[in-house]
């Protein structure tokens, strides 16, 4: 079966045909290289995104909103958001995660002191500061303790009735997932650049995601053809 999008190579390798066995987890050096943008040439593809479309539906027609992008600053995202008349905030969440815990430092991610330090580095904002958050897929790389703390902090920094967009891989068992950067191509399309693979800290299904965002008002899922869950969370 031919699948469009950046994941088609991954599915091919997971279909049982690879001669060298299952995909190996990403080593720290590879993940670090990916975070620094030093991995092999990124695979860039564009695909429709219902989640992004929903996100922009909620903020369309309004001006001067504060939007946080947790995927690091890219020209396309900055241009798109600011052209809509909004103020953009940028956090290179995974880079700070990497700096704080190491590229595969999930063991340290349960240390309360380090969690507190990490949150001061990356989500140190006032209550209700943001009208929308583009979370992308960064939550997949957090161990349970850190993830809970980050979600609580996100709930603190977003304004009530505002929206967040997050991506999660829909695989049940996987050692490594493609490491992406996401760029806004249009209000309903994203460009995905792959920079190798990275080991997720945990995987989610619909039920676990509903539980994770249980304190938010609502959670809405869109399953893409690439088996990626696009999740709209209303605060």
């Amino acid at each position, binding site marked *: 079966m031919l699948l469009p999008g950046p994941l088609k190579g991954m599915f091919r390798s997971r279909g049982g045909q690879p001669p060298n066995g299952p995909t190996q987890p990403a080593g720290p050096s590879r993940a670090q290289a990916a975070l620094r943008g030093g991995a092999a040439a990124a695979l860039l593809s564009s695909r429709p995104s219902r989640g992004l479309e929903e996100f922009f539906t909620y903020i369309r027609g309004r001006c001067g909103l504060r939007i946080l992008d947790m995927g690091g*600053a890219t*020209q396309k995202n900055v241009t798109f958001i*600011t052209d809509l008349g909004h103020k953009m905030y*940028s*956090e290179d969440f995974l880079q700070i995660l990497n700096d704080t815990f190491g590229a595969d430092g999930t063991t340290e991610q349960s240390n309360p002191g380090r969690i507190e330090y990490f949150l001061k580095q990356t989500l140190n904002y006032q209550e209700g500061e943001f009208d929308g958050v583009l979370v992308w897929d960064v939550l997949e790389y957090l161990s349970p303790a850190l993830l809970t703390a980050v979600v609580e902090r996100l709930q603190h920094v977003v304004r009530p009735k505002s929206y967040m967009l997050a991506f999660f891989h829909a695989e049940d068992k996987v050692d490594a997932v493609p490491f992406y950067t996401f760029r806004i191509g249009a209000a309903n399309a994203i460009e995905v650049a792959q920079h190798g693979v990275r080991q997720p800290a945990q995987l989610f299904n619909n039920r676990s995601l509903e539980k994770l965002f249980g304190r938010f008002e609502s959670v809405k899922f869109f399953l893409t053809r690439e088996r990626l869950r696009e999740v709209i969370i209303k605060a």
Partner: protein
Amino acid sequence: MWNKRRDEEPQRPYNPQAPASAPAVPSPVVVKKEATPVSSMSPARYEPDNRGGGSASIGKAVKIVGQIFSNEDLYVDGEVEGTVEAMEHKLTIGPNGTVKATVKAREVAVLGSIGGNVEATDKIEIRKDAKLVGDIKTARIIIEDGAYFKGSIDIVKPEPVKAAPKPAQQAAAAPHGNQVSVAAGATENKR
């Protein structure tokens, strides 16, 4: 035979004070208040793209703590703490430059590192491998892949161009020549 060899040698005027290949003559730099060496390095070592004619530069072995006001383009490849203002000009932070300061300029290009808020009336460029942590206020922004940015971006549309002022007004408003003013609390040459 001997005469021929002499003929092949490049002819140089005898001038024991000047080096054989003199660097480009730097633009006049006026330093107000404290006499502070603005640069300890030859400007010829910088990339041509990063220094226009008549620009001042702060070399990578120089550290300035205090306020910098520049009336010409400024290239910072050293360390600056405090404030940097080049309101009508371009400020370039070189690859070795580390600026912990509030920055105001017409145009800002970052190849090194800035920690502080940046206001650029025209545009700001954050190049690959550059790092900027702070809030940005500008009319246009360019961010290359591989750049690190943490902070907010506020795009301020430029005000509509007003009618051209009369020549007399223009002359009055013109800066009195190129100058860089350094009000430094401390200056340290790390070489």
